[in-house]
């Protein structure tokens, strides 16, 4: 069995208005993983998801879900996909149970009350099954949308900005839900512009900007490759220049009698630096370490992609 459950090949999208939303995007999604697609507003995240789900037509390129072409074999492809949209769009006077059963029905799945019951219980919605969606809280509405997306037992779940505009508690709640879905074997792709969201739950990170997919990489390897660390060495005595014996470390002078050392995670020389510092006659008052966040990596990637050298 192929490890990739989704393949996107050279997809381009230009809208009738002339706006080019996607430029030669290619992407693969591994079974059971959580992929976070990061990008600023208007980067093309929603267009990409909409093309995969069949809501928007690509200008060129091919998308296949578990080997099924989304245009020519759309029935087989779409049965494997569940989509949670960015906006809360629920029929206001329909009950939670009815709206979930409707979603299962339009995807052609056989009626299965036991499955819907287990799904609603898993999403803490069973107590509200008879409530009309208009009466639900914001968090419950989001969960109801997830229940609708999972109603036909898809293998891939698309979450388009699942925590846009929600409070911290609800965001954490949503992360737990996504993690729980992973344990049930659901492959998830989520778009977000919240970096901490990607950092918290994703296995791989994709960065999209101005319609181009800049990278897709394992989160751990991305952080290791681009996530520089910094050590600030605060000294007891004043220091005006970087000592000659420590020049090979590329230190910078910092505030408050300190020296700053930047290094990559895969080539640490902190122990040697501390030994040389001591040999040079300096005494440490304190040490502070910092790790470059995913947000800083993301900003740098987007800036360099846009030709901004800052």
């Amino acid at each position, binding site marked *: 069995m192929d490890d990739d459950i989704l393949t996107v090949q050279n997809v381009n999208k230009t809208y009738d208005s002339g706006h080019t939303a996607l430029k030669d995007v290619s992407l693969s999604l591994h079974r059971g993983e959580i992929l976070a697609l990061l990008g600023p507003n208007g980067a093309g995240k929603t267009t990409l998801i909409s093309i995969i789900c069949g809501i928007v037509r690509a200008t060129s390129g091919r998308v296949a879900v578990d080997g099924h072409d989304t245009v020519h074999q759309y029935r087989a492809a779409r049965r494997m996909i569940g989509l949670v949209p960015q906006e809360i769009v629920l029929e206001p006077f329909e009950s939670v149970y009815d709206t979930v059963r409707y979603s299962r*029905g339009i995807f052609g799945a056989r009626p299965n009350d036991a499955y819907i019951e287990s799904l609603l219980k898993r999403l803490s919605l069973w107590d509200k099954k008879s409530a009309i969606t208009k009466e639900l809280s914001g968090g419950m509405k989001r969960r109801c949308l997830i229940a609708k997306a999972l109603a036909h037992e898809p293998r891939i779940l698309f979450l388009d900005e699942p925590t846009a505009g929600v409070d911290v508690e609800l965001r954490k709640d949503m992360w737990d839900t996504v993690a729980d879905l992973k344990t049930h074997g659901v492959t998830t792709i989520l778009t977000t512009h919240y970096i901490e969201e990607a950092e918290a739950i994703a296995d791989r990170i994709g960065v999209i900007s101005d319609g181009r997919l800049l990278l897709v990489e394992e989160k751990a390897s991305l952080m290791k490759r681009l996530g520089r660390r910094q050590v600030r060495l605060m000294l007891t005595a004043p220091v005006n220049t970087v000592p000659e014996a420590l020049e090979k470390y590329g230190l910078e002078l910092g505030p408050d009698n300190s020296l700053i050392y930047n290094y990559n995670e895969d080539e640490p020389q902190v122990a040697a630096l501390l030994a040389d510092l001591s040999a040079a006659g300096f005494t440490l008052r304190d040490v502070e370490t910092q790790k470059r966040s995913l947000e800083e990596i993301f900003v740098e990637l987007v800036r360099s992609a846009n030709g901004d050298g800052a």
Partner: protein
Amino acid sequence: MNWRGVWAIYRHEMLRGLRTIGQSLISPVITSSLYFIVFGAAIGSRIDVVEGVDYGSFIVPGLVMLTILTQAVSNAAFGIFFPRFIGSIYELLSAPLSYLEITIGFVGAAATKSLVIGLVILATATLFVDLQIDRPVMMFVILVITCIVFSLFGFIIGIWAKNFEQLQMVPLLIITPLVFLGGSFYSISMLPPFWQTVTLFNPVVYLVSTYRWSFFGEADVNLWFSSAMITLFVALCLAVIWWIFRTGYRLRE
């Protein structure tokens, strides 16, 4: 065919109708009763007969047509417009449903609802007039065809409309005048020759005429010509719907 999907849409739309059953059924019944009282009893008592039929009975087919045409268009238009308006259309567009299946689901439900209303109006009519139906099977068949045809038309309106104003504009400003001017309350032969010719451009004339024939055995327009015109209207609606889905007009992008 994704018949489960078709059934899900049909059931969903029928449940929406049940949620507003008062508005769906009581309102047309009251309106029709008022027509019977005003046209049938008050004005009709001063009119002898039209084409050999008591005036109160004569207006029944036209009144049923007026109601089901308005209801079919409104129900089908609202059915597809509402998910577009609130954004939940994404779910239908991402489901493994063909365009035909989506159309069957929505149009089938709208046609069923308007058919039920039409039958209720007929039942209401028996309270006011002695109802004569020469060809009950044909009467039912024409009723069903009319419900389907105008539900198809309403479905197009629901996709075309950008807002609620446009959604209501067609039933109010086009359907109602066409029905009133389509011989619902009079015989075409009562008009001067010039206006008789003009009336033939009104598609509702053929429906009312054919429907009245099933009641009283008399038609304003030749039956075969009427059938041809109705078929042409169905073909036109189907062609427009096919074009809408093929191009994604107001549904995708």
